[in-house]
């Protein structure tokens, strides 16, 4: 049974991830509707959930066109890369005690590596399309990812220092008493912003910026290949939310007094849900920054904050060690 458990869980995540991403498209539209004083898709089925099915059928029946001027092999490969990378990232997420596919001692690094691999998808998609808008989108995403990758990793080092491990299970266990969102607030802020940039969601969706670049890197994509990009984006959103909960909001631990009333899996799911709602709220509220603003925010604000956070965390830890 214990041998079979990871396999079953992997299948569950695979199916649940795809279904979750599909439902998330609908959920996001409804939530945006709430915040923009309208309804969003509410026609098909109860609460409009049938919209998911309708979109899926529509995308399946679209002409699977590969532009004759594109680099065909890379063009077809690019959308799969992001989905595969994001799915792999879920392998190390601890949903509940004992409920994870694999507990590696470098779980955090594995997650960072997988999200970095997703950049290739955007980059190659933009490059292979042989279209100037797509190329500009790919170019932007390359620069954005490179600069935000730097302090995305660095912002997590505070967490690693406090828990003394790269294993995500150890990190969650270290938050049994106090969640890291209280002790690592700066790290949390930086990680959230870097996470949005990493999954290129709306405040930081410069690679696709529909007003400037039509659709950026996926201008030439359509049908299921486009759906794969979207699937990857929503999987990325879910993965980032899972990681924020794992690293900063105590993973499966419930809040102090009422935590033991409900199962750990519920608390994990609930917190991920809240974080996803917050991401949608950011999309509804914050306009997209200009490209140079994005870059200067990254290098001139976020990186110094991260380094300051690192220095303070290190100093406090050393001081406490000396005091003990």
């Amino acid at each position, binding site marked *: 049974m214990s041998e079979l458990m990871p396999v079953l869980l992997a299948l569950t995540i695979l199916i649940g991830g795809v279904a979750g991403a599909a439902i998330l498209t609908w959920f996001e539209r409804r939530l945006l509707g*709430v915040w*923009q*004083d*309208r*309804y969003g898709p509410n026609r098909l089925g109860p609460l409009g959930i049938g919209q998911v099915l309708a979109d899926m059928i529509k995308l399946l029946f679209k002409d699977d066109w590969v532009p004759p001027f594109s680099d065909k092999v890379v063009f077809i490969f690019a959308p799969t890369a992001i989905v595969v990378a994001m799915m792999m990232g879920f392998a190390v997420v601890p949903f509940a005690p004992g409920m994870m596919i694999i507990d590696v001692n470098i779980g955090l690094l594995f997650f960072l590596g997988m999200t970095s691999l997703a950049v290739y998808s955007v980059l190659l998609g933009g490059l292979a399309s042989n279209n100037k808008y797509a190329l500009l989108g790919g170019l932007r995403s390359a620069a954005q990812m490179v600069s935000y990758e730097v302090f995305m990793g660095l912002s997590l080092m505070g967490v690693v220092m406090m828990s003394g491990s790269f294993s995500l299970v150890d990190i969650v266990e270290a938050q049994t008493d106090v969640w890291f969102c209280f002790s690592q607030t700066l790290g949390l802020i930086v990680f959230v912003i870097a996470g949005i940039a990493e999954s290129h969601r709306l405040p930081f969706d410069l690679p696709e910026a529909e007003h400037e670049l039509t659709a950026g890197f996926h201008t030439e994509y359509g049908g299921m290949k486009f759906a794969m990009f979207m699937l990857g984006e929503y999987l990325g959103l879910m993965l980032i939310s899972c990681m924020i909960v794992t690293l900063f909001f105590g993973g499966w631990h419930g809040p102090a007094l009422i935590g033991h009333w409900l199962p750990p899996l519920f608390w994990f799911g609930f917190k991920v849900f809240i974080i996803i709602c917050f991401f949608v709220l*950011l999309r509804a*509220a914050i306009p997209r920054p200009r490209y140079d603003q994005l870059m200067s925010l990254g290098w001139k604000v976020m990186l110094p904050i991260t380094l300051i956070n690192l220095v303070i965390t290190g100093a406090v830890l050393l001081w406490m060690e000396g005091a003990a």
Partner: protein
Amino acid sequence: MLSELRTIWEVLKHTFTKAETVQYPEEMPYLSPRYRGRIVLTRDPDGEERCVACNLCAAVCPVDCIALQKDTREDGTWYPEFFRINFSRCIMCGMCEEACPTYAIQLTPDFEMCEYDRQNMVYEKEHLLINGVGKYPDYNFYRVSGMQTATKDKGEAQNEARPIDTKSLLP
């Protein structure tokens, strides 16, 4: 930075506001009587066609969607032999209604005239003509105008003086 946080808070407050959307097919919007929608041809209180085929509506129409042909009745009054409005061109500007000297052509509060076939958007006189007076219940063009008809002579219309005999010197 502060303005961004304030924006997030202001948007979050909209969680508790009602949606502005009108759920159209179930929930009909109120259209005022002056709404400029589907065009009709009205009749006067006696039940006769008001249109005198003067062609002013067709002349003023900015998109040239009105076509009509004048014909004469036995009593000398005019009427349109055919009256055709191409609603696939019509922009509901209401200039035909303003130009009409007899209040015959009127716009109504109805906009639901979708068709699958474009040709069905062309309305003939039988489709346009209604069995009513529209917005002007008492108006009858031939009663107020000096036009001579079979039932009344010149000067017999409402608020009209007898014509002056210009050949005579007597007042």
